[in-house]
C-alpha cells in the first residue's frame, strides 16, 4: 500500500455521467493543491451533458508532473460496471482498485493489486442520497492512501459550497467522506 512519504499519488476515477467522478477528481485536486507542489487533473467526458462515460485522472506530486494522462494509474476507482474490465488491466502492479460492490458484482482476478470492494452506493443511500457515493469513495481513497487528510477536502467543500447549497447537503457530503473512510479502515490489513 502507498504511504504518505510517497511523492506521487495518481488515481483515475471512472463512472457514468451524473455519478460525480469529476467532482471526486476536482475536490482531490483542489485539496491536493494545498498540500502538494504539483497537481494535475484531467477529465474526459462526452460532449453532451448527460449519460456518457465519465472519467478523470488526478496526480499529486512533489516533483514535476510530466504527463497528466497515464494509461497505467496507481489507483483506479470504478463506479460503474462497464469500465471494470479495462481498468483491471490498466492499474499498475502493486496498485489499488476501488469497486462499488453495491452495483458491480464481478470480482477482480488479478492478484498483484489491492482491491477494495466497497458498498459505496448503499452507504450513500443509507446516508440519504445515492449521489454522494462519489464522496464515499473519496473518503475511502484518502483513508487507504493517506494522500491528504480528509479535513483538507472538507475545507474545499466549505470553500466551494458554503452558502451556495443547503447546509444539510454540505454536511451530507462531509458525512459521506467519513463514512467512506470507515468502510476502508474496517478492511485495512495493517
Amino acid at each position, binding site marked *: 500500500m502507498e504511504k504518505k512519504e510517497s511523492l506521487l499519488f495518481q488515481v483515475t476515477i471512472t463512472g457514468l455521467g451524473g455519478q460525480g467522478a469529476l467532482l471526486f477528481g476536482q475536490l482531490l485536486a483542489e485539496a491536493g493543491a494545498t498540500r502538494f507542489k504539483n497537481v*494535475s*487533473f*484531467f477529465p474526459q467526458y462526452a*460532449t453532451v451533458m448527460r449519460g456518457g462515460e465519465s472519467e478523470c485522472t488526478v496526480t499529486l506530486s512533489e516533483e514535476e508532473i510530466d*504527463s497528466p494522462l497515464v494509461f497505467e494509474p496507481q489507483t483506479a476507482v470504478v463506479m460503474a460496471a462497464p469500465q471494470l474490465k479495462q481498468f483491471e488491466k490498466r492499474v499498475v502492479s502493486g496498485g489499488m482498485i476501488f469497486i462499488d460492490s453495491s452495483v458491480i458484482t464481478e470480482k477482480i482476478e488479478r492478484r498483484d493489486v489491492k482491491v477494495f470492494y466497497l458498498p459505496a452506493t448503499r452507504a450513500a443511500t443509507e446516508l440519504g442520497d445515492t449521489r454522494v457515493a462519489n464522496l464515499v469513495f473519496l473518503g475511502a481513497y484518502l483513508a487507504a492512501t493517506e494522500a491528504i487528510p480528509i479535513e483538507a477536502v472538507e475545507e474545499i467543500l466549505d470553500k466551494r459550497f458554503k452558502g451556495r447549497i443547503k447546509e444539510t447537503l454540505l454536511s451530507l457530503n462531509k458525512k459521506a467522506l467519513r463514512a467512506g473512510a470507515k468502510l476502508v479502515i474496517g478492511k485495512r490489513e495493517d
Partner: protein
Amino acid sequence: MAEWILSSGNEAAARGAIQAGCKYFFGYPITPQNEIAEFLSEELPKIGGVYLQSDGEGAAAYMLFGGALTGQRVMTATSSPGFSLMHEAISHMAMVEAPAVIIEVMRLGPGAGTGGQQGQTDYRQMTKGGGHGAYRNIVLAPYTVQEIFDFTQLAFYLADKYRILVIVATDFILGRMTERVNLRSLNFPPLPAKDWALKGKDQKDGKSDHHMSALVFGGIPEFFQHQTEKHQRIIEEETRVENYQAENARLIIIAYGSTARAARRAVNIARKNGLEVGLLRPITLWPFPKEAIKKAASRAEKVLVVEDSPGELVEDVEAAVLEQVPVHLLGIWARHHSGPSGLIYPERIFQEIKALI
C-alpha cells in the same frame, strides 16, 4: 505579486488574455472551448470590457478583424470546425495586418469529427495558412496550463510587435486539464504606437486611416515584399523550441502540445530504463524550428514524430531532417482504443521507443 491558482487550460487562456490587457472578446459556443467564452462573459464586463456573442465563428472572426483595427487588444476562441469558418476573415486580417489573438482548442477530425473530443488534426490548417492568399500566422503551442497562461500574453505581444494574427494552439486535453498556475504578469519590451488604428479622425489630429486591400490600392510586389521580410524577421527572431534531454539522444522524439506531455513522460520512462531518448518540442509551430531539428537529427540515429493525427507535423519534420536519419511516425493509430475518447498514452510511446532503439 505572483499568485497561484488551480486552473484549467481554457480558463488560463482567458486569464492570460485579461492579464495582457485584452478587454474585448468575440465568442461563439463550440466544444471544447466553451469555458473560455463563459469565463470572459463574466469577467470582461467587470473591467469595463465587452464580451460580444457573435452569430457564428465567421462573424466572430470579422468582429476580431474590426476590433483589431481599433487598436485595442482583442481575442476570440474556437475549436476546429469553427476555426474553419473563420478563415475568410483570417486571410483578410493578414491583408490589412490586423493584430489579434485566436485560441484554437483543437478537436478531432474533419467535419463534425467526434463532436468535441481530443485530436491534433489542425496542424496544417494552422501552420500553412488555412485561408487563401499566401499569408502566415504565428502559431504558439503550449503544453502546460502555465504555458497557456504565459503564451496568451506572449501572443498579444507578438501580434502587436509584428501586426500579425497569433494563434495559440491547444486541444481538448490542454483545454480541460487543470494544473497550478502562477498568475504572473510577463514583461515585454515596448511596442510601437498603433498610429494606424481606426478611432475617428478627432482622436488622431485629423488623420484618417484606410484599411483595405493593399493590392488594389498599392503596389503588388511591394506588398508581398513587405510581408516576406516581416515573415523572415519572425523566423529569425521568434522561432522557439524546447530541448528536453535531446542533446545526446540516439532517438529524438518530436511532438507538440498535449502529445509532447505524453512524450516527455515516455522520455522519462525510457531514461529510467537506460535508453538514450530525448524530446525536441516545437513551441512555435510557425515559424517551425527547422534548424534546431536539422541539427539534432544530424547527431541522432532516428527521429520519432508523435502526433494525434494521421501525420501532419511529420511532413515539416521530414523537410527539416533532410533524410539524414530515418523519420518514424507514431500517429493517431497509437490511441488506446478506437472510440472517440481514445488517447495516445505515454506507455504506448515508450513501447514504440523500445521497438525503435
